[in-house]
């Protein structure tokens, strides 16, 4: 069985250096390591395979173009790339929401809530780098009280504002803010040790 690929901080720094030096093989390596996660995140947000693949293309094009803007002192490479993927996917999601003819289809697809659109397409964990980190983030989320976890998922994966979350859940705005603040504190504490990439 294939072992999950792992990358130390030194290897990550080397990869970033090569990307900044316009080494095309480094981009290929980065794709191999991160494409499953970028595609998974985009699929989770968009519930649409074609649009998610479009996001993957946007993300790697943007990373290649703007890797010089990545500041290692302000954070590791993976969260930076994931934030690009999330922002791009949410842009598409908001554009789609404005397209009323697709709204119903999206609502129907999203009714399945946390369930992935096509579970059969998920790769085996051993073949995907970063699986341990996935587990840890999942565990941190699972450790949150259900009412906090629900708000975090709405904010992160649907890009809703506090007011929109309050309307969607029928909770007072102050309660939403308080629960999100508490959730953020707990997640920060639980994920504080995540400094190495994919370790």
């Amino acid at each position: 069985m294939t072992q999950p690929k792992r990358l130390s901080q030194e290897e990550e720094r080397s990869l970033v250096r090569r990307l900044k030096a316009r080494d095309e093989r480094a981009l290929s390596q980065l794709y191999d390591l991160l494409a499953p996660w970028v595609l998974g995140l985009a699929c989770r947000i968009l519930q649409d395979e074609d649009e998610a693949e479009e996001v993957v293309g946007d993300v790697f094009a943007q990373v290649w173009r703007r890797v010089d803007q990545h500041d290692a002192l302000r954070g590791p490479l993976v969260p930076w790339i994931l934030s690009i993927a999330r922002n791009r996917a949410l842009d598409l999601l908001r554009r789609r929401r404005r397209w009323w003819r697709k709204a119903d289809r999206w609502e129907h697809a999203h009714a399945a809530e946390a369930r992935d659109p096509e579970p059969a397409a998920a790769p085996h964990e051993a073949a995907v780098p970063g699986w341990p980190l996935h587990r840890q983030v999942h565990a941190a989320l699972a450790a949150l009280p259900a009412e906090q976890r629900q708000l975090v998922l709405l904010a992160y994966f649907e890009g809703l504002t506090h007011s929109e979350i309050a309307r969607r859940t029928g909770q007072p705005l102050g309660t939403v803010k308080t629960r999100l603040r508490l959730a953020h504190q707990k997640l920060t504490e639980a994920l504080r040790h995540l400094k190495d990439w994919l370790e």
Partner: protein
Amino acid sequence: MTDWLGMAADPRAPPPELKARVLARALAGPRRRWWLAAAAVLVLAVGGAYWSYRTVTTLRAERDRLAGVVASLRDSLALVNSASAKVVWIPVTTGGRVGGVTIFADSLRHRWLVRCDGLTRNAPDQAYQIWFVTEEGMKSAALMAMDHERPMVMALDMPPNGGKVMGAAMTIEPRAGSTEPHGPFVFHRSL
């Protein structure tokens, strides 16, 4: 730390053909943009240079025109203010309309400044012609075709030879002018 939340989504195996598509797009993008940027810079540079050339040329022409106007006005002002200038106003009637011709005659500088007001416009084949009346006869001073009814000012150099200038006259002549007066006199006046 919420930046790590993206890892909460389950990974998905990308279709095998996606990698080539994604890498080709990422690697081609900046080059295309580089060429686009270079083309845009070139267009801007050429456009800017042409615009600058046009602007400088226009401004130079305008500067030269204004310099000419200023020189003409200075000349006229010097003539008007000259202590040796003699001013003569001659009432004229053209086409039933009353107007006037003012002559600033500077005998020291041998120059005249002539201003015509209220002259009717000429027929298409005619023009007003001004004459110096000298001891040796009539010498053409200026030909002015009046196609618009508005004041006209001109500076004239008195003839270097031909005797003393004793007066002025204006006739209506063919548009190309005459060597001696043939047409009807608008005025004839000794100074």
